[in-house]
């Protein structure tokens, strides 16, 4: 056994032991009652459905191009910004309260135009020249694109945090066993599942989906078979951008806030979700998103509180990053995906 194997086993044992110890102690102490746990779970699923939609964009692009679209989080941010301007305009005009469905549709439409536009521009300027390049140049260029987008939005719209207008029906909720369930959360979860189903259908049942799978398998052979690779890539980015805009707008409706650097952390976490589910797998991205959302929301209370960690919710991001690295080390193929990471040059 080499040093590496020994230390990996050590790491694995330590993490599992910490999780088990923390969980047992927390449950024994019973600091939280059942309805609190239920609230954590619900919040986790809501957040997870947003991660899932952003993760779908990562997975789509990875599946076709075998590259990490590092700027995806910032494309989401762009969609959220566009949505903010339409939503606040329709709020001033009064349509948001009178015809909420119409206004939200308009918001989504504007956001989608912007997000898809940004996605296509990024693809054309920063990614296409590197399609046949191996090594870190494509990733570096993607990091550059991410920074560029972030700073452009800061320059255009300022560095202040913008708050989305309130919706009246947003406060609608019903109670299940003493726990408040907001309707918006349900809408969000349904949207995420619907988005995944649509994508799954497109990829597996349509002609375009067949072309995507062919390009993913072997781009050069696909070209020989008469598939326009550029067209497929553009469509992939459009679908990814569309997912990002829905996620961006919903994120903004739930958390009420839009700011120029929101893309980075959202992007990294969604990437972790995509990886957790298995890069390139559409149901995997969904599953990964929900698992990450749950782990982030339930985790701090469940794992850390028991060990006696002060202010456990500050360590929320720690869980996401530990999951990210853990998946990369121990199961690069994720829960449902192909094996990546180790074999890619």
């Amino acid at each position, binding site marked *: 056994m*080499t*040093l*590496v194997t020994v*230390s*990996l086993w050590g790491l694995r044992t330590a993490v599992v032991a910490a999780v088990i110890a923390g969980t047992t102690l927390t449950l024994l102490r019973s600091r939280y009652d059942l309805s609190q746990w239920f609230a954590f779970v619900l919040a986790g699923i809501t957040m997870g459905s947003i991660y899932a939609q952003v993760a779908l964009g990562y997975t789509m692009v990875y599946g076709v191009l075998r590259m*990490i679209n590092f700027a995806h989080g910032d494309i989401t941010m762009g969609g959220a910004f566009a949505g903010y*301007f339409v939503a606040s305009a329709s709020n001033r005009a009064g349509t948001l309260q009178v015809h909420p469905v119409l206004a939200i549709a308009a918001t989504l439409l504007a956001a989608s135009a912007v997000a898809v536009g940004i996605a296509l521009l990024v693809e054309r300027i*920063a990614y296409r*020249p*590197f399609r*046949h*390049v*191996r*090594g*870190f*140049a494509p*990733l*570096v*260029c993607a*990091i*550059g*694109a*991410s*920074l*560029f*987008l*972030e*700073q*452009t939005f800061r*320059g*255009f*719209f300022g560095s202040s945090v913008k708050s989305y207008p309130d919706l009246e029906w947003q406060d609608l909720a019903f109670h299940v066993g003493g726990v408040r369930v907001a309707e918006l959360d349900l809408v969000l979860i349904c949207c995420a599942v619907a988005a995944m189903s649509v994508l799954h259908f497109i990829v597996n049942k349509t002609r375009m989906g067949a072309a995507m799978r062919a390009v993913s398998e072997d781009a*050069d052979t696909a070209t020989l078979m008469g598939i326009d690779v550029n067209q497929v890539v553009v469509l992939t980015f459009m679908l990814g951008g569309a997912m990002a805009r829905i996620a961006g707008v919903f994120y903004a409706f739930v958390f009420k806030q839009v700011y120029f650097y929101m893309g*980075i952390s959202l992007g*990294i976490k969604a*990437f*972790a979700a995509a*990886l957790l589910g298995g890069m390139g797998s559409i149901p995997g991205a969904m599953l990964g998103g929900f698992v990450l959302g749950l782990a982030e929301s339930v985790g701090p209370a469940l794992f*850390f509180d028991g060990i006696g*960690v*002060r*202010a*456990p919710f*500050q*360590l929320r*991001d*720690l869980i996401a*990053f*530990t999951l*990210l*690295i853990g998946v*990369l*080390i121990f199961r*690069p193929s994720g829960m449902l995906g192909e094996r*990546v*990471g*180790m*074999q*890619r*040059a």
Partner: protein
Amino acid sequence: MATPLRRATATGVLFGAVAIYVAMVGLLSVLHTRWIVVDCISLGQVALLAIAIGAGLVAARSHPGLAGVGAAMLAGMAAGATLAALVVVMAVVDLRGTFIALSPQLLALLTFNGTLARGVAVLLGAGAALAGSAALLARLPRLPRRFVVAGATAVLAAGAFTELIQVILQAHPQLDTLREHFYGSDGLTGQGAAWAACLGATASALGTFVLAHMPAHAAAPHGMRRWAPAASLLLLLTVLPLIAGSYIDHVLMVMALYILMGIGLNLEVGLAGLLDLGFVAFFAVGAYTTALLTGDNTQALAALSFWAAMPIAVLMSVMVGVLFGIPVLGMRGDYLAVATMGLGEIVRIVVVSDFASPLFGGAQGLVQVPRPALAGRPLDSPLQLYYLTFVAALIATYVAWRLEKSRLGRAWMAVRDDEDVAESLGVDLMRVKLLAYGLGAAFAGLAGSLFATMVSSVYPSSFQLAISVNVLALILVGGIGSLAGIVIGAAALVGLPELLREFGEYRYLLYGTALIVMMRLRPEGLWPSGIGRPGHRRVQA
């Protein structure tokens, strides 16, 4: 005939779009606050000129002779028209509620303080005239062209770095009359600009003359020609801080710190091909170790001197590097980058949390880190701290240079070029990668240690992901694998934004743009090392 016309127009519109972007992102207004020649032309106006000239040069490139000048004028006019469209929109609708940069001041700048119609006419006319003259200039013989370019560059440099030059001149009172003649309160005077142009042109003429009349065989021998630029760079970095003021010393100190980190990251990325986005973690470990061992705060573990704490800090960084490296270095390519980024973030989250605050001070950080003392006297001034960092960077350069030439260096490059081949040739991948990661961490730890004593306090907010990206950007821009390139990169990406202070908030925009542009146009960097284009292997279809 329609296609060349259309192409010239398209070029112009593209450059016009760049101008609109620069205006909307707020950069133009910021640059406009700095005079090049007082009450005559500002840096923002120079940016507009540069865009028109760029449009002219690009459009003229595809046509020979005078047709090129015509194409350039068309492109310049198209660029002007594109920008004029923004001006008209701004004059008609107030977009300031959405796009905060579209202020009345910007409108005044773009209409040249006149009416809308006059402004549009000037934009169109000046665009065409500038682009046309740029194309004409490109058609001049080499010698006069070089004079004009050198003169313009001299004026631009003398104007943009007014503060820097003023500070240096102020240190010598006997030059006061000269200074007052050439410089107004915040830029060149007309007379100063004329002199700067003459000086630049003369210098360029002298240089051309000397080069042309030096017999080829008497010219510097091969080895010297290779070393001359590096030696002059070294001389500049040694002497410049002595004559510059303390502000420049401070800028140079930060630059030297980044050079030190760049050398470390270059071992990982440039030599071994390991893309590390969590480099800041080792910087943080070095800084925190130093603060804990020397600081006068409640968290302090010991009261060592800086000189005793520094080696321990470096050692700690190496240990953390190896600890982090063992699990993640088996990954390849992009996944290693993401995993290291995660490690860097984990370090920051732990350090900032309340949970670890008894040890690391949480968000309040660690304060009262003493300055290093030499012969009983603390090194307090920026100049002394600069020399401290400079010496550290020199030692690091020597170590990196020896490593590169060693057996280990060759193993790193083999791993970088092809891992599988390297392994089949008997390179122990894990060992070699761990060494690269650990040694890179050592340099970052040293930089962190110096940083802690330099700013005499350590806050978690100093250790953002942005630092890693910053160091990566500077080695990629300068030329990966090249030690001189790191200095150039640090000067361009760290020194320049510090000098043009109002530009500071746009530095990350500069990094992002620089990364994309460099990767696309010049992946080998500004000062290539001759190792080709690492990270840029083209696979055959």
